[in-house]
């Protein structure tokens, strides 16, 4: 099969082109060894099927970012039959810079001049003939957005893929031309592919090339040393970058499009969105709206303002007799007002899974193991996961809109300074804020962060921003244990604790990571544009597919495992146990709880129950409350100290999040990073809870503090005394 790859700058319309060419055949994975997305699909409109590979968006073929390395290795080593270089016609100057590098590789290249519709709208034209002449390859006008010229592009790329092409460099006639030629001739003697590309990189002192061709490198260095130093002081990287840009502006100046020098629409939007004073409030407002649309049970506060009890009835009546009456009613019936789209969809999803459980229960024999496995195990598990899918997707959709429209880059621009001191960039703010809603879309949103380490760190602290599913734990503890008066302060303090620990954790990780350097923040602020519906849906569909796959495999297996543990005793041949107290889970919890002794909540006769609750919390954090109720912790008297309760809350906040979030963390972090993340969650939750428990206990019994300090002092004086005297004796 013919393989054609797409290469181009970020924001040049590459993804839109890819989606238009491949349609539903696209599938997404990762490039081996890195967390850079790899998209692959098939183009079927020609006699031969064409495999299309979407390379990550890059500005250059330097070997510094994972995206650049992936693209470089693919084009150089995997021998694609043709490279389509997508070029934004409205910004030729910077886009052609990459083109000049691609041309140096021995591979057929077709330049796709994108956004040609925008040019036409502004009555601009580009001289195709002169472009083709100067670049030496075919240039095709397209509009990926309007799907114009795509078939023509593919026809030409297909023809070109049958040919071979020798590399060409725009540096030929420049001052480094002879040096490049020298290196080229040396490299040609070896059997290396694309000698010209490597020759230029050698002259540039590219790390990879110098390492691979040390002899040619020394030869070139000798020649360089004998050359007179010029303005650039022998900085060949600067000379070559400059020569490329020079060549572009010398030959294509007339083709550069500068829309009337005044303010563009993008500038006008930016005037407001990155305004000195309003930028941050507007950003917070946008985030609030996203949350409101996803999680609010009372859309726009309509219920609170207008007392919508009646209107809701009216609303239900409105749909009576309609085809989807039941579905709409289910979405709003349980609420006191008009819900947000997120809550509406969530209720509706609950209705679907609930009905499924009802249907199954109605015809399955009661009390058998199989019935329980399907109803209490699998279906209840599906219910737990599916109930939050609508909100996950909705939040993810909003993030994709922010990303595609160009606003995300502005968020980074606005917030960068505040986050840099924690070793993160401004972009990390969005995933972290989303953590308050749900960790799953928050972790998905880390794909907008370029730096791998930053992604890992952000994923690691995301669950500390207490998500919606954890809220019932806090409210339960607040109401039952702390009493009404202290309840709100308790809940509030948990949220604050999460944020504080997240910040401290990020700083600690920054301090402890070896040869850490703040990733550079040299980033294009792309023009704003309306997000493409097709792209958004493709994004969502990919994530949904991936999530459903995970849900039906790993997550489901984990859920069934917990079901087994909590419904069977070690004598499993005797059938299911009536009382969870007799289950394997209880047995394990009764042993494991000793680990939680130092944290306070493992102590006492109910200690194992709290331990068991933290286990079941892995399915979904709401299950912590569910298990506590099942084990009679809610009605019964709580015999834990306030310190232990607080430590229990902290433990659940910081430990492993639910299986759905853990599996998302796995797919979004680097391989090494994920293992560290698991260890990090387990150990950090333990340490923080330990500190909280003892700190609170000490405060509660301040008297003991004095005694403790005094005894520590006495002991250390004794130890020191013994140590010093023994040392003296040794010397003597």
């Amino acid at each position: 099969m013919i393989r054609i790859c797409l290469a181009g700058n970020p924001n040049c319309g590459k993804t839109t082109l890819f989606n238009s060419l491949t349609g539903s055949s696209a599938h997404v994975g990762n490039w081996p060894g890195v967390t850079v997305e790899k998209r692959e699909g098939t183009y079927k409109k020609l006699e031969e099927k064409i495999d299309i590979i979407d390379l990550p968006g890059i500005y250059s073929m330097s070997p510094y970012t994972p995206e650049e390395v992936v693209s470089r290795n693919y084009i150089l080593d995997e021998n694609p039959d043709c490279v389509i270089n997508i070029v934004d016609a409205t910004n030729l100057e910077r886009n052609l810079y990459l083109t000049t590098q691609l041309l140096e590789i021995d591979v057929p290249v077709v330049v796709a001049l994108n956004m040609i519709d925008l040019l036409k709208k502004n009555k601009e034209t580009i001289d195709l003939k002169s472009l083709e002449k100067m670049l030496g390859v075919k240039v095709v006008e397209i509009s990926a957005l309007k799907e114009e010229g795509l078939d023509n592009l593919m026809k030409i790329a297909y023809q070109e893929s049958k040919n071979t092409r020798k590399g060409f460099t725009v540096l030929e006639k420049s001052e480094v031309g002879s040096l490049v030629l020298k290196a080229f001739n040396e490299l040609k003697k070896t059997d290396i592919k694309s000698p010209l590309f490597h020759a230029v990189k050698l002259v540039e002192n590219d790390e990879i090339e110098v390492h691979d061709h040390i002899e040619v490198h020394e030869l070139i260095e000798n020649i360089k040393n004998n050359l007179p130093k010029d303005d650039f002081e022998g900085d060949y990287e600067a000379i070559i970058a400059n020569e490329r840009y020079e060549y572009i502006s010398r030959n294509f100046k007339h083709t550069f499009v500068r829309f009337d020098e005044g303010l563009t629409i993008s500038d006008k939007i930016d005037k407001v969105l990155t305004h000195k004073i309003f930028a941050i409030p507007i950003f917070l407002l946008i985030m609030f709206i996203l949350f409101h649309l996803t999680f609010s049970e009372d859309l726009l506060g309509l219920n609170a303002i207008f007392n919508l009890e009646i209107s809701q009835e009216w609303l239900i009546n409105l749909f009576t007799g309609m085809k989807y009456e039941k579905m709409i009613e289910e979405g709003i019936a349980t609420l006191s007002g008009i819900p947000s789209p997120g809550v509406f969809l969530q209720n509706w999803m609950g209705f679907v899974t609930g009905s499924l459980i009802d249907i199954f229960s109605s015809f399955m024999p009661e009390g058998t193991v199989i019935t329980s496995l399907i109803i209490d195990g699998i279906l209840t598990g599906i219910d737990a996961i599916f109930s939050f899918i609508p909100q996950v997707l909705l939040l993810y959709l909003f993030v994709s809109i922010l990303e595609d429209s160009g606003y995300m880059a502005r968020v980074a621009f606005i917030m960068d300074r505040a986050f840099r001191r924690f070793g993160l960039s401004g972009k990390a703010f969005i995933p972290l804020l989303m953590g308050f809603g749900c960790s799953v879309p928050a972790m998905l949103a880390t794909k907008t962060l370029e730096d791998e380490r930053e992604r890992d760190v952000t994923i690691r602290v995301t669950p500390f921003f207490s998500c919606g599913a954890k809220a019932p734990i806090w409210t339960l503890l607040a109401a039952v244990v702390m009493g009404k008066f202290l309840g709100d302060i308790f809940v509030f303090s948990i949220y604050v604790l999460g944020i504080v620990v997240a910040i401290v954790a990020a700083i600690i990780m920054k301090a402890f990571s070896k040869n850490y350097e703040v990733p550079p923040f040299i980033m294009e602020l792309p023009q704003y544009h309306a997000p493409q519906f097709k792209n958004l849906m493709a994004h969502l569909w990919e994530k949904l597919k991936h999530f459903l796959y995970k849900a039906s495999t790993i997550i489901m297996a984990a859920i069934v495992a917990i079901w087994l543990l909590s419904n069977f005793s070690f004598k499993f041949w005797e059938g299911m146990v009536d009382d969870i107290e007799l289950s394997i889970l209880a047995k394990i919890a009764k042993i494991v709880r000793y680990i939680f002794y130092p944290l306070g909540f493992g102590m006492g006769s109910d200690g194992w129950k709290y331990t068991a609750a933290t286990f079941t919390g892995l399915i979904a954090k709401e299950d912590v409350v569910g298990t506590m109720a099942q084990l009679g912790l809610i009605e019964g008297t709580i015999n834990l100290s306030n310190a232990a309760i607080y430590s229990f809350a902290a433990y659940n906040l910081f430990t492993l999040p639910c299986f759905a979030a853990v599996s998302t963390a796995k797919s979004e972090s680097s391989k090494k990073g994920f293992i560290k993340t698991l260890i990090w969650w387990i150990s950090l939750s333990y340490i923080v809870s330990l500190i909280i428990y003892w700190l609170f206990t000490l405060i509660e019994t301040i008297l003991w503090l004095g005694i403790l300090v005094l005894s520590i002092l006495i002991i250390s004086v004794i130890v020191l005394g013994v140590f010093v005297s023994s040392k003296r004796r040794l010397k003597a």
Partner: protein
Amino acid sequence: MEKNLSEFKIGEKGIIRKVDALGKIKRRLFDMGITPGATIMLKKVSPLGDPIEVTIRGYELSLRRDEASSVIVEAL
């Protein structure tokens, strides 16, 4: 008059004379079009004072003051 880019005021224009950065950052600056000879304008400063936004080669680029201080520009 030559000064570094981080000392520019909003709206100020100049021609890049030299890029004093090292390794990865220098390469990235070059790749993004910040090369000697190019015209550059400081367009905006982030609400918190850092990073800054410049217009270069017909597009908008944001970079931190740290990185901008290595770009020596002759003000116009």
